């Protein structure tokens, strides 16, 4: 008993020492990195987020790699994470269930010949050549220069042509007045909406950003989603794709999507 107590005591001391040491190391590393940044040589490597007053750049192409082998069947953490972040969920009481907005949905796949079943999250694939943008009559559906496909709801007239054009069924229409929207995701009646790749987080954190779905997946311990810059060969997503590859859903359409999958 005494022995256990001693061990615990030592452990506690260790932790104390560790935390001081960490602070010291953190501080020194910060100072060193600061020195390196000053000439502006390593700036892009150290501070990857763009300054807030600068526009997004076509140097980036944001995307995600989803490993369906890590995606747990029956788990909908990503869907709930998205709803919490962007204010979706139970705020369309007058709409039928199949009419309610789905920015991201879980899809179950079954191989009849082998009986193998797995699941994956499906959302806007952020195409390089988005059909929704091609067909939009007002210019509301657009692709940002960094590859994120969005709806400018100020211009959207709610014709839903983009919903027809999308091969991934990724867009939703809002049929009724909403309340209590969140500042990061204005949503309203009569407009089409879809996954924004959590652009407010991307604009803030750049390469270090983590969309809400990926964050929720990580906190469940699955870590099935990798977010990053497809244009940057050093980013984790590019390295993973270079190493083990990834599949585009309906690659035959030649849309060059930003969301890649593994294991499908």
């Amino acid at each position, binding site marked *: 008993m005494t022995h256990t107590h001693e061990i615990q005591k030592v452990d506690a001391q260790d932790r104390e020492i560790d935390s001081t040491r960490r602070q010291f190391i953190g*501080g020194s590393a*910060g*100072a060193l*990195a*600061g020195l390196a*940044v000053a000439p502006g040589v390593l700036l892009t490597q*150290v*501070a990857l*987020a*763009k*300054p*807030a*007053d*600068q*526009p*997004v750049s076509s140097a980036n192409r944001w995307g995600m790699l989803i490993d369906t082998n890590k995606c747990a069947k029956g788990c909908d953490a990503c869907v709930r994470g998205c709803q919490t972040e962007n204010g979706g969920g139970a705020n369309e009481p007058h709409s039928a269930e199949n009419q309610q907005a789905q920015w991201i949905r879980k899809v179950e796949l079954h191989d009849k010949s082998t009986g193998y079943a797995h699941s994956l999250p499906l959302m806007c694939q952020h195409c390089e050549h988005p059909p929704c943008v091609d067909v939009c009559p007002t210019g509301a559906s*657009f692709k*940002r220069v*960094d590859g994120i496909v*969005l709806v*400018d*709801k*100020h211009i959207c007239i709610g014709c839903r042509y983009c919903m027809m054009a999308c091969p991934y069924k990724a867009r939703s229409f809002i049929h009724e*007045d*909403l309340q*209590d*929207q*969140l*500042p*990061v995701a*204005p*949503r*309203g*009646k009569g*407009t089409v909406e879809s996954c924004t790749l959590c*652009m*407010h*987080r*991307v*604009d*803030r*954190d750049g390469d*270090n950003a983590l969309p809400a779905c990926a964050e929720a997946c990580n906190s469940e311990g699955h870590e099935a989603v990798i977010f990053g810059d497809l244009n940057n060969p050093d980013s984790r997503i590019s390295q993973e794709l270079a190493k083990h590859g990834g599949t585009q859903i309906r690659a035959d359409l030649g849309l060059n999507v930003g969301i890649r999958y593994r294991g499908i």
Partner: protein
Amino acid sequence: MAVMLRKLRSLLLLVGMTLLGLPLTAQSGTPLPEVPEATARFSETQGCVEPTAEMRKNHMKMILHKRDQTMHEGIRTPQHSLEECINCHVPGDDSGKIVRIDSKEHFCNSCHSYAGVSIDCFQCHADRPVKKTEFHPLVTKPSPHHAEAISNGPVSTGTLEVLAEEGKLQ
């Protein structure tokens, strides 16, 4: 400031009416919008992000300009952002009362209902401070209203240094 302006305006009205020889009694009850006070000041000398007269006349131009910048270019600075207008001008739910856009106590509605100009911003946008967005840690001009807020997101080395100097880093 607003009270002073209101007094000044009433005074001018009185003087004008006197000069025109109109009866004063009819004018003393002229209704004016009761615009709620903001919760913070931009600086010691300036109440809002631009001079008050400029804001009264051109706030919509600024919001529209910022809207397109944010939507299409991802520029998310607090100044001229609708969210920051709301954060400062509309009381939060923690103040004990929920003020929605259809209430006369709502900053935007207090004046817009008086002027008979309808707005549809809040069919989609949050009409009160709901959940504060963490702005980029490197904003070039930090919001005066949230100067003390430190982002929980990943911060760059430059920010770390500044925070360390200020002794705010744990």
